């Protein structure tokens, strides 16, 4: 059982939260209370309303004892900043960030953050599906992104 904190309850955050809550202790941080509806009415997640770059909010979510932190809001910069607070101030051992901009993802990957670029993953999966190639490890899709070469 891992203690998991997820910042962002959009489609990604809510799916991830519901998926993990079956076997792990999950807390979801979300600024917009409306978005928490995505979790449905019978979920097992703890919910904290606020911003993940606010240390007080992170502490209420139990960041100090967290094993894993996911930053999956729509805002790349908010995700990146929250991840850095989680790493440097609260020493969370496993951190994963959703970053839409592949260049920004590349820069922060070089600083040692696990950055997932959803558009690159989808494009890579679809392309391999079309040509009926076996799917590859996630990092290959992350870094094969064509946009990076521009």
């Amino acid at each position, binding site marked *: 059982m891992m203690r998991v904190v997820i910042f962002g309850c959009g489609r990604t955050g809510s799916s991830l939260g519901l998926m993990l809550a079956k076997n792990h202790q999950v807390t979801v941080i979300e600024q917009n209370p409306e978005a928490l509806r995505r979790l449905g009415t019978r979920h097992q997640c703890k919910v904290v309303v606020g911003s993940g*770059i*606010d*240390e007080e909010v992170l502490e209420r979510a139990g960041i100090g004892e967290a094993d894993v932190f996911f930053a999956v809001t729509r*805002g*790349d*910069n*908010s995700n*990146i*900043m929250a991840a*850095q*607070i989680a790493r*440097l*101030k609260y020493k969370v051992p496993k951190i994963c960030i959703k970053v839409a*901009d592949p*260049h*920004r993802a590349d*820069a922060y990957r*070089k*600083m040692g953050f696990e950055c997932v670029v959803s558009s690159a993953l989808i494009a890579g999966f679809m392309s391999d599906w079309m040509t009926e190639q076996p799917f590859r490890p996630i990092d290959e899709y992350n870094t094969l992104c064509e946009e990076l070469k*521009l």
Partner: protein
Amino acid sequence: MYMILVGGGNVGVNLAKRLIQRQHEVLLLEKDARQATRLSNMLGEEHVYVGDGCELSTQKAVGFGRADVVIAVTGEDEDNMVVCQMAKVVWSCDRVLARVNDPSHEEIFRQIGIDDTVSATGIIFNLLEQQIAKDELIPLGALAKGNIEIVETVLSSRSPVVGRRVRDLTLPPQTNIVWILRDGQGLVVEGDTELKVGDEVVALLPSDRAEELRMLFVPTKV
């Protein structure tokens, strides 16, 4: 000097005006096209660029690589952080300066290597504190990446150090009383200097010693 400013709000535009007057090469980045047009009319279009300062393509186009200083002054701390961090890490820019809106973020900015930050909230708060609080230790500033602090306290009649000479105080290690303001006059502090009610005492000390100094100077609350 070539100065890149990111964020065309009030802070950005007023800063740009002054820097242009000082004959610097100034470029102000603003991502909203309509706001950028207004800025062009005010500053001259050679000083304004429409684009998101967090994006690599913009950074490349405006020449982050040859900037002498990159200054991030948007209203969002996360944007200012990413601009400055990418300027340092990707473009090896020596000098970056970030506006920090929430003063509690200053520490994390320093930890990731953005040493120069300005927080209007923090400054205003400290000024108010100085006017309101007697017998509190007020931080005036920090040196050496925050490891050394300059603090000030105003002595009330209840302070346990009133009437004592500086040499008789057991100050925390590496702590120096550098300045006393008495009746509007600055005093050079010597061992024989006796502390009086109303003295504004300024000390320089390692930040982890501040609590010890507070215990020495500030009367315990009843």
